[in-house]
């Protein structure tokens, strides 16, 4: 809401020295968000005067028509001689009164005026348009042509009220009444402790039977409808400068006198109004819900198909307006031909929810709907109608019809019971009853009672419904800045949960291993799932879709972290960082199948349900909460890494090494270590991964094995499609399940101080045998004496080992808890280990 300071002063006698910034500070302290104070005409300097065009000479031979004029500016130029001015506008004639800026003046934007040669003539100044004077668009598409009564030589800065300050206030949804001068003036008066001249306090004649006929069929949607008629309007009458200027400063464009007046009264009182051309309304004006499918062409020229919930204004032919939102084209005031001489003024009060829904349904937000949605003072309607009638009589030469129509659904003002000490309890401040009562009276409440106050809230404060609303009024007027600071004493907390600790630990561990965290958007499209080689029936193709995505290319929520991470990898690579290790932990989303706890795993499960809307006047039952949760997508937390380029750099210390599949698998092992989970790594094959270099990651939860992810090098085809560096590697796993499989607390090992017995073995197996299986066999065969086992060499040589064979060299460390092992004992354990590997994996001891 834009509030010109000069206009505001009409209702509150602010000290003359008070600047816009001073008022801004005061209003902020009582809770109005004054965002800016615009200084209109701050850099403007005269002479800027009224002139009269004496002669016009058309200059030919230029790209556009140019006029050389002489203009009488009186004594403003010091000589009284006609001023010679070159002008490009064409909307004026000899004899017109115009606004002339003379050499030496400065126009808004620091535009200094001097005599200068242009189009072969010397132009001593300029004939001004409203844009050049910083007045905003007036729709004239040319220079300002004043009405004839203004005298030549008059100072136009004052005439056009070019110097002013405008407060721009972001009105919060609860303060609908501040979408008016009246409301802001009231807050200003309170903030300054000054009286308010309420513009709604007008003498209004009571309703009678001769007013324009109105029938309200839906008193809930419209609890008040005032209609007044003005006849004998001068269709030639134009809005006076003061009216146009106030509208412009408040951010509205002057249109025609009748429309300007209704807008002006809306700005002043906050009451949206509508003026119908009486000649174009047929019969009784009605208010009712629309019939589904009814059509209405609104003032903006759009033909709208109405919904049965839309509240409409009708005449005998059907809808002539969307109540509280926008009028219809058929009964529009004619502002082009100027034929309207009689108008019916509507000042009505419509239900906020009804207006909000209609505005939203038709994507049609107007000045009127904005106000009705936020609450309009229902008692201002008759005053607003009266004000409109008065202005039409005054400015358009009309005659007020004696008929006054008022349809009012009876309603009682709202009262709230407020313990007098309640504001004190909310604030933690001892205001006392007297202060509470005084502050509530200042905002317009009637207050009765002692310890228990009965507060009747003013009609313009539909936002005040609860005791806490009243407490806020008291506290804000007493000043939030005066609140003391105390600290509550929470009970001792339990600190971070194990899960929260784990998430932090994982972040640190991955960062410690050289990974940089990226937080990517979760939006994906089907294309990326294709590019990742996901099979047609892959559960990760079942996505949660948004109704209103930012991009139609990416309408769904991620089921895997890879699209985001690979995007970040590509972005970094493109910006010249080629050696990359990135990680992310975050939620992925799977539509939940009804009756199934596991999303994604059962793609063909039963129909999922929509979330129910629960009441808010009580705690929902556990069953209701469960039903709500059941409608939400599954949102497990995943962890993923991607790698490209060098994992270790080449430098003076020697050669580096590229990131490879093993780094990706190691990242999974690192997470498993942090979680305290035994991770099963085996050969796998899935979507985007290289079929020969993909590890499947699994854990055991409650005795059942569960695959939680994959790690390894990505498929070269996928890399090519995604424009990623060759040999890019990745790992992704379900962190929640990994955590579930965790062993919990570490059990301390018993440390033997007896000497270690080391035995090395080299085993030859088929090249396809997984080393993990060989190791498992060795472990099992070695028995309890085995302290540790480590694979220290893998060797393939067709000549020595035979084709398709490989040698695995292990260092076995044996130790007993209670004695020094003999060589024979250690050898026996080693032999037992080799035997099991031999039986199970066909391993042969290398000679």
């Amino acid at each position, binding site marked *: 809401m834009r509030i010109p300071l000069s206009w505001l002063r009409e209702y509150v006698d602010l000290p003359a020295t008070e600047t816009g910034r001073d008022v801004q500070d005061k209003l902020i302290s009582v809770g109005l968000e004054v965002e800016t104070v615009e200084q209109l005409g701050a850099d403007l300097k005269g002479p800027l005067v009224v002139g009269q065009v004496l002669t016009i000479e058309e200059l030919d031979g230029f790209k556009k028509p140019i006029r050389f004029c002489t203009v009488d500016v009186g004594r403003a130029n010091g000589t009284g001689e006609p001023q010679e001015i070159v002008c490009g506008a064409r909307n004026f004639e000899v004899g017109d009164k115009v606004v002339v800026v003379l050499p030496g003046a400065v126009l808004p934007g620091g535009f200094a005026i001097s005599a200068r040669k242009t189009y072969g003539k010397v132009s001593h100044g300029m004939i001004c348009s409203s844009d050049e004077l910083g007045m905003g668009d007036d729709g004239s598409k040319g220079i300002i042509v004043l009405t004839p009564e203004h005298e030549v030589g008059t100072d136009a800065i004052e005439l056009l009220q070019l110097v002013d300050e405008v407060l721009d206030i972001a009105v919060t949804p609860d303060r609908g009444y501040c979408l008016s001068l009246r409301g802001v003036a009231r807050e200003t008066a309170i903030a300054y402790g000054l009286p308010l001249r309420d513009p709604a306090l007008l003498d209004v004649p009571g309703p009678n039977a001769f007013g324009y006929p109105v029938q309200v069929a839906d008193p809930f949607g419209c609890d008040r409808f005032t209609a007044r008629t003005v006849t004998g309007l001068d269709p030639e009458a134009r809005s006076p400068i003061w009216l146009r200027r106030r509208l412009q400063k408040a951010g509205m464009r002057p249109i025609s006198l009748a429309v300007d007046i209704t807008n002006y009264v809306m700005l002043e009182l906050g009451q949206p109004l509508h003026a119908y051309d009486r000649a174009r309304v047929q019969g009784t004006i009605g208010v009712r819900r629309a019939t589904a499918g009814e059509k209405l062409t609104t003032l903006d020229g759009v033909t709208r198909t109405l919904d049965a919930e839309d509240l409409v204004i009708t005449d005998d032919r059907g809808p002539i307006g969307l109540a509280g939102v926008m009028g219809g084209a058929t009964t529009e005031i004619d502002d082009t031909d100027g034929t309207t001489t009689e108008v019916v003024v509507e000042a009505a009060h419509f239900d906020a929810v009804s207006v909000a829904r209609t505005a939203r349904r038709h994507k049609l937000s107007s000045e009127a709907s904005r106000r009705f949605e936020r609450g309009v003072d229902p008692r201002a309607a008759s005053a607003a109608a009266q004000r409109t009638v008065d202005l039409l009589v005054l400015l358009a030469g009309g005659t007020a019809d004696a008929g006054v129509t008022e349809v009012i659904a009876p309603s009682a003002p709202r009262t709230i019971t407020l313990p007098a000490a309640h504001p004190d309890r909310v604030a933690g401040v001892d205001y006392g009853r007297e202060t509470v009562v005084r502050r509530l009276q200042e905002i317009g409440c009637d207050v009765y009672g002692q310890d228990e106050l009965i507060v009747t809230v003013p009609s313009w404060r539909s936002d005040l419904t609860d005791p806490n609303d009243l407490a806020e009024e008291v506290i804000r007027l007493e000043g939030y800045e005066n*609140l003391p600071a105390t600290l*509550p004493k929470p009970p001792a907390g339990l600190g971070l949960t194990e899960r929260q600790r784990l998430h932090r630990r994982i972040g640190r561990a991955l*960062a410690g291993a050289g990974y940089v965290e990226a937080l990517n958007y979760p939006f994906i499209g089907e294309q990326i799932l294709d590019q990742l080689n996901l099979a047609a029936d892959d559960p990760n193709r079942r996505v949660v879709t948004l*109704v*209103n995505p930012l991009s139609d290319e990416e309408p769904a929520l991620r089921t895997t972290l890879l699209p985001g991470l690979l995007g970040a990898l590509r972005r970094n690579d493109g910006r010249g960082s080629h050696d990359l290790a990135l990680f992310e932990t975050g939620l992925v989303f799977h539509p939940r199948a009804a009756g199934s706890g596991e999303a994604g795993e059962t793609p063909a499960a039963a129909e999922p349900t929509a979330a129910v809307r629960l009441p808010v006047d009580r705690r929902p039952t556990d069953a209701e909460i469960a039903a709500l949760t059941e409608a939400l997508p599954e949102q497990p937390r995943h962890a993923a890494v991607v790698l490209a380029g060098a994992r270790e*750099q080449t430098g003076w210390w020697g050669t580096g090494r590229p990131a490879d599949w093993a780094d990706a698998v190691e990242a999974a092992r690192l997470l498993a270590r942090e979680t305290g989970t035994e991770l099963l790594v085996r050969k796998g094959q899935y979507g985007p991964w290289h079929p020969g270099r993909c590890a499947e990651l699994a854990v055991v939860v409650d005795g059942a094995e569960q695959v939680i992810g994959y790690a390894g090098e990505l498929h070269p085809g996928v890399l090519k499609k995604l424009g990623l560096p060759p040999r890019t590697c990745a790992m992704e796993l379900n962190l929640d399940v990994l955590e579930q499989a965790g062993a919990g607390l570490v059990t301390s090992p018993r440390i033997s101080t007896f000497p270690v017995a080391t035995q090395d073995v080299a085993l030859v197996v088929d090249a396809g045998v997984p080393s993990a299986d060989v190791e498992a066999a060795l472990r099992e065969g070695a028995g309890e004496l085995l302290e540790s086992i480590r694979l220290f060499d893998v060797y393939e040589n067709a000549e020595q080992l035979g084709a398709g064979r490989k040698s695995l060299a292990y260092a076995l460390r044996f130790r007993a808890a209670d004695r020094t092992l003999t060589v024979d004992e250690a050898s026996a354990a080693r032999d037992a280990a080799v035997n099991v590997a031999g039986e199970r994996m066909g391993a042969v001891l290398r000679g």
Partner: protein
Amino acid sequence: MSAPNKSYDPVEVETLKPEEIERMRDEALAAFAAADSLDALHEAKVAHTGPASPLALANREIGALPPQAKAEAGKRVGQARGAVNKALGGRQGELEAERDARVLVEESVDVTLPYDRVPAGARHPLTTMMERVSDVFVSMGYEIAEGPEAEAEWFNFDALNFTPDHPARQMQDTFFVQGPAGDDAESGVILRTHTSPVQVRALLDRELPVYIVCPGRVYRTDELDATHTPVFHQIELLAVDEGLTMADLKGTLDHMVRSLFGADMKTRLRPNYFPFTEPSAEMDMLCYVCKGESVGNPDRPCRTCSSEGWIELGGCGMVNPRVLTACGVDPEKYSGFAFGFGIERMLMFRHNVEDMRDMVEGDVRFTRPFGMEI
């Protein structure tokens, strides 16, 4: 070793004269002193203390002396050999020390060589900022609560006193999740527009009193630009207990900014409107850079607060009793306060981040300098 000389002949024991012994000793000492390396010293050692050295030979001659002369000659030779061995040991020590020092010099390296064998990793500053803020409250006894990002509208709006047609509901540009039946069906599921639904979950799940802090990711339908991102992070605090007041809210906010920005920090409250708090306030913190001294002081402008002296932080207020009712908490008995603010914003003014996109794009050059903690 030759046999003792039985035939006494004083002329033949010229070598045992005192001046001869002294000469041998002096020659040995001179040779050791002249040795400039351990090898040279070894040669001198062999020459002057070895079995063929003059002193060794002289020693051997002692046996040939008459018994009355033996003692004196023996003493003389013994003293000389003692002095020689001592000098040898001393010189040996000196040369070894020199060698050791030289080896250390030779082994010296260029310690300024760079080492980026495995470049350092880092956590995202948004993550560590959320942890940092959370920890302020965890240390006061609050616990961290979490909730889903795809959330039921009831939790995100209704329970927080956003009525279905309230303008405030339209102001939070919401991503709606498609219902099971496709486009037009209302699923009642959205991407949470703030971390406040976690308040509701906490009040439903936990025993009173409740003191929680909820960091997390939230969504609004803003296009990404220098100051907006559709996916961002908030942290939210909720305290519900008997007798909590707005003064408690103010004190808690002051404590937070002191913990994060220094002991001389404070906050300011300005009236505002949120459906889920009443009274509601906008909270500002004193500019931690200029401490407000740039206000009205054009000579010392402050970029961080645009010379406003205060930095807008977020929203707060007393929990609306209607929210308590919807969560089954008796508003007659309990009251509470809550606040929330954007982590991106705090990161921007705390660490001079100029463009929101830097926090979104995952460029390692942006993230690395923030390290493990913030």
